[in-house]
């Protein structure tokens, strides 16, 4: 027990240092800003110069769009401003906007968004967050009419046919970042399966829970993202505990079969997802801090400061989880229950308590992963859907039931998803990962690190 307490304290210390230490390095807030995303059809365009001048024509600031196409210029005061896109800095093959200048009014404390439609008449959208134009009012008969904007376009470099080396490194950078978060998110699913044999279809919604809770703390309650994230982790842990003690454990004690519980988890998925739609709404939202940053070059990789913190936190947590599993008694108990619950119980391990611990830690990590995803993508109620199948791909590739399988699988799937855009269109990159998962299930169903067992 003492080693476990030390490990938990160590974990909290790492988190505290990470979160608090990163605050001064990452804070980038002005009272008023103007910004946006430069996209060519769905691919972000990098390196475009934008100049902001005030109503008198004096230049206020100038910047370049980053690897995600994003740019932002801080403003001295509210008022009218003119944003001009320098068409000479557009990469070749990208059509210029019909109007290279947009005039807009920025209110007090407003982060104004301005959109340049490349190739179409430039127009102003509503202030941030930009509303999506897809259906929120459900079409009759269509399940929820969740028209997603596919191919996030937030993680892809400008689509060119030939792969330049810089592009490959960019993809690797994005992939590693995504994969590390995916590994965190997948841990919970894999361990739950390992200990009780349940494939929890609602696990993606636990990730979304973290993202959305953090958003409410950050935007509605006005808490800075770092303490909001810590609170979210605690809330997610409580949610996981409540789910196990209040719902899943009674079901197990009743003797509910695994297939029944799996379909029940589908019901939980529906309940949670549409609760998020109900509470959060159908639009994508952003956190208030750390969202707009430009990437820096670290060797051949390109990451923004927040990306490095994200990857550092993810890696650190994975190391802590590994150490806990290997060195502490609680960790050993988890591994024993994953291996053979009956034998573990007969050797004196409280299986129920182990399972609850797994739920708590798994959900907490999923919640944190949700916050991190919300940082690199945006927060919306469909996050769970999008991430669930990738989590499945990660755990199956790595080996369903093992923690290290989940982590390794997550990293590999993350890199795979990004690098595959060299060969397949970006909107199909998730399909590529799913195809890999299907193939793995056919040729090596236990995944890379799993144990050979009956899968059929």
């Amino acid at each position: 027990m003492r080693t476990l307490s030390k490990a938990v304290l160590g974990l909290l210390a790492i988190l505290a240092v990470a979160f608090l230490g990163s605050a001064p390095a990452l804070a980038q807030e002005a009272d008023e800003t103007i910004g946006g995303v430069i996209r060519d059809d769905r691919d972000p365009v990098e390196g475009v110069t934008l100049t902001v001048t005030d109503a008198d024509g004096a230049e206020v600031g100038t910047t370049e769009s980053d690897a995600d196409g994003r740019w932002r210029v801080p403003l001295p005061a509210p008022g009218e401003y003119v944003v001009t896109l320098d068409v000479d800095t557009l990469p070749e093959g990208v059509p210029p906007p019909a109007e290279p200048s947009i005039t807009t009014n920025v209110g007090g404390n407003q982060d104004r968004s301005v959109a340049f439609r490349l190739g179409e008449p430039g127009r102003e959208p509503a202030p941030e967050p930009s509303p999506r134009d897809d259906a929120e009012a459900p079409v009759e008969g269509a399940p929820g009419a969740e028209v997603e904007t596919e191919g996030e376009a937030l993680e892809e470099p400008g689509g060119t046919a030939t792969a330049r080396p810089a592009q490959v490194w960019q993809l690797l950078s994005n992939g590693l970042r995504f994969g590390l978060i995916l590994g965190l998110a997948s841990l919970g699913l894999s361990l739950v399966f390992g200990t009780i044999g349940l494939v929890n279809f609602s696990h993606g919604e636990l990730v979304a829970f973290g993202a959305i809770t953090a958003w409410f703390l950050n935007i509605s309650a006005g808490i800075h993202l770092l303490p909001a994230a810590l609170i979210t982790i605690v809330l997610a842990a409580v949610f996981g505990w409540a789910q196990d003690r209040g719902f899943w454990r009674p079901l197990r004690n009743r003797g509910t079969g695994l297939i029944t519980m799996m379909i029940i988890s589908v019901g939980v998925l529906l309940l949670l997802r549409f609760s998020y739609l109900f509470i959060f709404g159908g639009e994508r939202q952003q956190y208030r801090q750390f969202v707009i940053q430009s990437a820096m070059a670290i060797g051949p990789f390109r990451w923004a400061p927040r990306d490095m913190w994200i990857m550092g936190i993810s890696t650190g947590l994975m190391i802590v989880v590994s150490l806990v599993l290997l060195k502490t008694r609680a960790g050993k108990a988890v591994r024993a229950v994953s291996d053979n619950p009956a034998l573990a119980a007969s050797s004196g391990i409280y299986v129920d308590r182990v399972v609850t611990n797994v739920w708590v830690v798994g959900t907490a990590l999923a919640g944190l992963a949700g916050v991190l995803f919300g940082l690199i993508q945006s927060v919306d109620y469909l996050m769970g859907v999008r991430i669930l199948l990738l989590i499945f791909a990660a755990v199956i590739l790595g080996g369903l039931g093992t923690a290290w399988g989940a982590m390794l699988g997550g990293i590999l799937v993350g890199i795979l998803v990004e690098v595959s855009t060299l060969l397949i269109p970006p909107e199909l990159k998730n399909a590529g990962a799913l195809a890999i998962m299907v193939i793995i299930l056919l040729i090596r169903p236990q995944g890379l690190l799993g144990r050979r067992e009956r899968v059929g």
Partner: protein
Amino acid sequence: MDWGFIFDVSARSLVGQEAIVYALAAIGLNVQFGYTGLLNFGQAAFAAVAGYGLATTVATFGLPFWLGILIGFAGAALLALLLGIPTLRLRADYLAIVTIAASEIIRLTFRSSTLRDTFGGSNGLTGFTNSFFDLNPYEEPMGFGPWTFGSREAWVLTVGWVLVLFACLIVWALMRSPWGRVLKAIREDEDAVRSVGKNVYFYKMQSLAIGGLIGALAGFMFSIANAAIQPDLYQPTFTFFAYTILILGGAARVFGPVVGAIIFWFVLQFLATLIESGVRADIFPFSLMTTTQVGPVRFMLVGIILILLLVFRPQGIFGNRKELVFDVR
């Protein structure tokens, strides 16, 4: 609160097109899951392939409508083959994951902008239903009371319900045959069936194909009723709703899926109209719920219904507790 309006709208949904589409999808699922125990989470893919087969043949390539129907069926059968050959040996939970992944791969492919010229991208296709409506014998609106439909809609509903009855007839005939008995035996104990010398793999494949062909009917009706097809209508939620309907009505019963579909959409429509009227009439305070939030509420209810059904009455309304697929690993 206009109760007359609420009643009218809800009554129409008893025979409406959603009920038809999901009844057909659930009947197909019944063959696969209710009778054979295959946890196919990709039923949406069968409907999508059939619908796109029809729409692409007619709208993109300008070929006749009936050829489109044929191609839709062929596509569904091919999908059953492709899906089944590698995966039917897998355990239930792995089969579920693979089928849902396949369903998403197919949807993403149909949705892709690379293939937009063929499949219409995220906007989908329209303009493939003319031959269908040319056969419409109804001239004027017909019906009585709340069930008054325009001539086009009446034709869609007629054809749809005829197809539903046809599918039920097929299922009934199949399941009382020796072939059907083998399916049920596979559901109960695969190894026992194998030990008697039956080729379990082939039976499962046939079950998957037949369920998929009935699911293809659902895809046809869905696209014809909307006179359009869109990829985002075929998300996993489509399959999840079909499962809810199947379990609600009672798996492994011929009319279970039909009754489930009717009740499901009636309840959903009734609640939606009720809540929306309530919000408009200020019975529910606006701070609690706006009119745009009515949609999610009823789908939250679907999740709750599914959970409650499985926990307290997994056999649904008409099902037989002894014939349950569940409690089998």
